[in-house]
């Protein structure tokens, strides 16, 4: 460990390791509640009859439906616990996210989300010495196809 660095050897050892695998079903009602919460009336996300007659054949999940980082807080809690155990700073901010939508996700799909740490960096910011962790989550559907990749940035200081 470099002198004064926030990135401990334990943190470095977490890079590339599979921290969590989660399987969940995309439910029609969950999609509708999600679209309603955004205030998005698009029939592709709200009306199963309409959506079933489109090329998608089923109610589609709006972009980002799969949540941060994956549905529910369980993955996030596990992830933060792993980072803390490895000596990461205690104060946390959500730095943002990037999604790559590979294939449509819709009602009835069963997704497997795999979470790993892709990168850990640090630099001096207005918050002081600050650590940036890039978390990569890959979603694979029931056919074995990658449907979504996402990269979330966790800021710790």
């Amino acid at each position, binding site marked *: 460990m470099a002198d004064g660095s926030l990135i401990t050897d334990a943190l470095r050892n977490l890079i590339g390791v599979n921290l969590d695998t989660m399987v969940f079903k995309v439910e029609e009602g*969950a999609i509708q*509640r*999600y679209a*309603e*919460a*955004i*205030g*998005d009336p*698009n029939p*592709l996300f709200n009306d199963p009859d309409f959506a079933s007659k*489109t090329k998608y054949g089923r109610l589609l999940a*709006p*972009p*980002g439906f799969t*949540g*941060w980082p994956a*549905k*529910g*807080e369980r993955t996030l809690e596990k992830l933060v616990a792993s980072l803390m155990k490895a000596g990461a700073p205690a104060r946390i*901010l*959500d*730095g*943002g*996210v*990037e*999604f*790559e*939508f590979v294939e449509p996700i819709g009602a009835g799909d069963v997704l497997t989300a795999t979470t790993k740490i892709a990168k850990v960096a640090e630099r001096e910011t207005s918050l002081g010495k600050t650590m940036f962790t890039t978390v990569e989550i890959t979603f694979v559907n029931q056919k074995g196809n990658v449907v979504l990749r996402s990269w979330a*940035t966790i800021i710790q200081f």
Partner: protein
Amino acid sequence: MAKQICYQDIEVGTEITPLAKIATTRMLVQWAGASGDFNPLHYDDDFAKAVGVGAPIVHGALKRAWLGHLMTDWIGDEGKLKKLSCRYRGMDYPRKMKTMEEPCDGETWWCKGKVTKKYEEGGEHLVECEIWVENGKGEKTTPGSALVALPAGKGK
């Protein structure tokens, strides 16, 4: 449904049709339930004060979802959203509720964007956009970017 926008309809600098949003305390509760994010930072006054943000703040992921709405509305049923990213730069505070359904007077947020690049690659007609959520003062609290594929040609 608005007419389908196509690759020949847009140029670098073309504005994405803006989308207005009003965050309310009610909406934040609804979002918490729909998204599964039950962090008290978004609904508990005392908790929000204790962590130093003053009052409950709008979920970053809700603002991200608004940007998704902005893009899927703009590209229509034939467009494909390929990438979306955003950063949570500034905090936003929801309006309180006046009645069960009606918010108090206050801020309106606008989701906006513009085309920064267009190119063809791998048989697709791709368009890069700069997008953001701006608050009532016109500050970009949630800047981001998107990559979409549009149908070739001109919209009818």
